[in-house]
Structures are given as C-alpha cells and as structure tokens.
C-alpha cells in the first residue's frame, strides 16, 4: 500500500468517524446558546474553543461533517445512478440516436457553469440541503455518463463480450453482467473525486446561505458566520476551513491511491 493511500484513507476515516460519533455523542451542545462563553480560543473552552454563540467548535465540526458527507454521498449517488446507466446505454448503441442524444446532453450540461446553475436552482427552489443535493447531483450525471461510456466502448470490442453476444445475451444484460463489473474500479476512483468536489460545492453553497439551513450545522455556514469575526477571533474562521481542506485532501489522496492500487494504467478524468 502506498503512503498516499494510507494518508488519504486515514484522513477520510477520521471525518467519517467524527460524523458517526456525533450521532451518539458530542463533547458539547450544538444547539444551546451560551453567550457568556462566546468566542473562547481553542483550549480555553473545549479543545477547539467556542463560536460567536458560545457553542463548542469541536461539536459543531463533528455534526457539520454529517451534513457535508450526507450531501456529497447523495449527490454522487444521483450522478452514478443516472450517469452510469446512460453511459452504458450510449456505449451499447454506439453511433445511434440514443448515443447522440446522451452525448450531446452531456456536452450541454458541461457547458453550464455548474456553480451558477446550482446557485440559480437553490435560489429559486429555495435554499436547503435537499435542493443543494439536487443541484450538485445534476452536474455529477454527465461526469459518470462520459466516464462509463468511454470505458464501456473499449470493452465492447473485446473477445469476452463477443463471446457473450454469440451466446445470445442482449445489450442490456451484457452491460450489467460484463461491462459494469469491469468498469467498477474506475467508477469508485471517480466517485471519491466527485465526493470531494461535492463537499467543496456544499460548503460554497452553504457559505452564501443557499445550502444547509439552521439549526443544521454546516462547515460552509460556520465560515459565513465567522466572516465578520475574523479580526477578533480568527479561530472561528480557521477551524471550519481546515476541516474542509483536510477532508477534501484526504478524499483526493484516497482517490489517487486507489487508482494506483486498483490499476496503474488508469487515467482518471479530473475536472
């Protein structure tokens, strides 16, 4: 195992564990307000200090991890759930009308500046975690559709697929039984990358007030709350940002490490 893979796996595991533990235990209260103890620096009150309402920062980070992970997982799920079948269908009918429609549709979604449209969707459908998930998820669809179409096209020319066709299997069955297992590695690697992009996107949307709404803690909103307090209490701005950076870094390293471990020849589409 490479050092990249280990470091990435450890960092990712820490944040997943923090999110899971927060369901049963947090060191402090994330909803109670304690103005007397507000903006305490790390160490003075709790391990990471308190925010502008006196809430424990460590507890906020732990529960915030829950929101980030939930939004990113569902957004990647939407991307895979719609994108992979579309990509496989396009590859199975290469050159046909379906392929043309799916490929042009992909190009079109790619042409939209994703954040602009995400802002538009959440602003119009109303801010909130669910709309943020949909907005981020839509832009994951073409990523997975393109990836699985490209990888599947290469497989369709191979002998074992020919054999399956000769055996009388239809395109849908071949795609599900023979193509999908062979591109699973690729999908897992791309999945971790989209997962980290999803966390960044959720933080961005929550930062401008369009993502998770109070009282649901979110790293992006913690940063937004911290903005006016940067000068008097830098820790309220630095800690949530570090949480985002370490999580995204961990997921990216995990993706790179997995790619090298699963198949050194793989080249992943990085957007």
């Amino acid at each position: 195992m490479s050092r990249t893979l280990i470091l990435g796996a450890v960092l990712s595991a820490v944040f997943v564990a923090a999110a899971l533990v927060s369901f049963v235990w947090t060191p402090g209260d994330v909803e109670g307000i304690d103005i007397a103890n507000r903006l305490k620096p790390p160490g003075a009150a709790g391990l990471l200090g308190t925010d502008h309402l006196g809430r424990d920062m460590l507890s906020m980070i732990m529960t915030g991890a829950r929101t980030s992970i939930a939004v990113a997982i569902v957004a990647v799920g939407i991307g895979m759930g719609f994108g992979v079948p579309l990509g496989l269908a396009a590859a199975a009918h290469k050159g046909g009308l379906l392929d043309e429609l799916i490929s042009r549709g992909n190009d079109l979604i790619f042409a939209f500046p994703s954040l602009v449209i995400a802002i538009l969707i959440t602003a119009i459908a109303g801010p909130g975690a669910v709309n943020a998930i949909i907005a981020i998820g839509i832009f994951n669809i073409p990523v997975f559709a393109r990836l699985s179409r490209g990888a599947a096209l290469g497989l369709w020319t191979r002998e074992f697929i020919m054999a399956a066709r000769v055996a009388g299997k239809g395109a849908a069955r071949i795609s599900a039984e023979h193509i999908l297992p062979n591109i699973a590695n690729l999908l897992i690697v791309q999945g971790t990358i989209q997962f980290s992009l999803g966390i960044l996107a959720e933080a961005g949307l929550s930062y401008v007030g369009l993502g998770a709404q109070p009282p649901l803690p979110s790293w992006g909103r913690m940063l937004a709350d911290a903005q006016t307090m940067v000068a008097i209490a830098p820790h309220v701005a630095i800690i949530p940002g570090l949480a985002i950076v370490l999580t995204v870094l961990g997921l990216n390293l995990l993706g790179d490490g997995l790619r090298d471990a699963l198949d050194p020849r793989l080249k992943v589409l990085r957007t």
Partner: protein
Amino acid sequence: MLGYLIRRLTSLVLSLAVASAVIFVVVEVAPGDPASYMLGLNAQPDTVAALRAELGLDVPRLQRYLNWVGGMLTGDFGTSYTYRTPVSQMIADRLWISLPLALYALTLSTLIAFPAGILAAARRGRPADMGVMAATQLGVAVPNFWFAMLLVLLFAIRLGWFPSGGFPGWDEPLDAMVSLTLPAVALALPQAAILARVMRSSLIDILGEDFIRTARAKGLTRGQALWRHGLRNALIPVLTIIGLQFSFLIAGAIIIEQIFFLPGLGRLIFQSISQRDLIVVESVVMLLVFAVIMVNFLTDLAYAIVDPRLRRRA
C-alpha cells in the same frame, strides 16, 4: 474544413437554443410573481394586473420566450423590473469589474502554474517535483472563499496592505487594481494548482516522445530539448484547460465578489434573484453560458485549424 465548420456551427446554435430554453423554464417556474413582489403585500389586484401588463408578463410564456431570445439576438436584453434600466446597460457596467477580475486571476494563475509545472516536469521524481505536487494537492483542496478570508485576515486586517473589500472605480486605475488583487489571488490559487498539474503531465508525456530523443541525440541537453521542442508541443492540453478555467473563474467570481463587496455580475445575480428581477437573472445567466459555449467553440476551432486530424472527429 467547411463540412467541419458547418457541423460545429449547427451544434453551437443548437446548444445555445437548448440552453436558453432550459434557463427560461428554470427561472419561470420559480414561485413568486415579480409584479406582486414589487408592489408589496397590500397591493390591489387590479394594480398588480396593470403592472404585469406593463412588464409584459401577461402574454403567454412561449411568446415571452421568443421575445426574450429575439431581443437578445438584436442586443436588447430587456428592461430590469426593479431599476427600470436596460439590462444590457446593467450588465455592461458590472462586466467592467467581473471581466478584469477574471482576466487578472487567469494571468496570475498562468504566471504561477507555468514555472511550477515546468519545474516539476524537469525535475520529475525529485524533491522539487514532490514539493510542487504536494502544493497542488493542497491548492485543489482549499475552498477559494476560505482562502479569501485568510488573505483578508493577513493582508487587510493584520498588515493593512490591501483593502478588505469594495471597489473605487476605474477612475483611479491603480487603486482599482489594488482592490482587485486579493480577490484575484483567491480565485487564482485553485486554478493554478490544476493548471500546474496539467502542465507537468503534458510535458512529461511529450518528453517521452521520439522527437525529444532525436533532439537529445543531436546533442541538446535535457533542458534545451525541453525548452526548444517540448514546451510548445505540451501547450495544447494546457490551453484547453485555460479555456475551461474561464468558466470556473466566472462562477468562482460570484462567491468571491460577495466576500469583497465587488459590484460585479455575481452580486447582480444575487440581488436580482432576491428581488425576483427575473429578466436580469435570465439574461446574466444566459450571457455566462454563452461565454462558456463560445470559448469552447473557439478552442475547438483553433485546434481544427492547427491539427487537421481533429476535423474528422466530433
């Protein structure tokens, strides 16, 4: 070449048509009637109806869509519901901040990424390469709005070298550039990290080519071969990414403009959404999408001119 051009133009027009329809539908299904929003809670129904008629909201949706698209084709982006000024004028005013900001950031990111990527490729596998790669890993993981906050904390609040926000206008070009510096740096960093990686991997690919070996056999040093023959050939993927980054910069600028209180297109979008000034929202988003599609189209076209093999594809 002509056949290729016609095919690409058709798909360009089609993309724009579909994009405009999607934007129109998304904005139009939004709850909240602009007229009743503008007149407040106590407005009489007939007043609202009169304003709807005045704003052109009483005609069927399809008719409004066609009016909107037709207007844009002739340079008429409609009139803002809230400010009663032509949308094209509002966009033009804001563009004078957003466009220089995006170009400033693009310049910075190129200035950082090119030397870093070239250095990493030339010293592949050695400490300099590993240092650059580690820095780029960090660069892509840092959210630009958080980086912006850190920049403000250090350079505006602690050191006082730059303003923490606001824009003095272009009458004072130097002050204007100074106030755009921190936002541009914040936007440029993640882009520079991506660009440096592309530069490095593209150069490494090229350095494995036969013609580089020929150049080395001819007596050039590794460095000379890289500068004279490698760099130019490695630029094609790099230029593609620079083209794509343009759209990321515009999108990223929307959030960055909020942080630094810059009255650019991003703030215009946010304001118009909250005021239900739908015509402004539609037109600004359409303009951004148009810019992205055009940049991609021109990039493809430039390649097709340079490399005839590409004309057969797509």
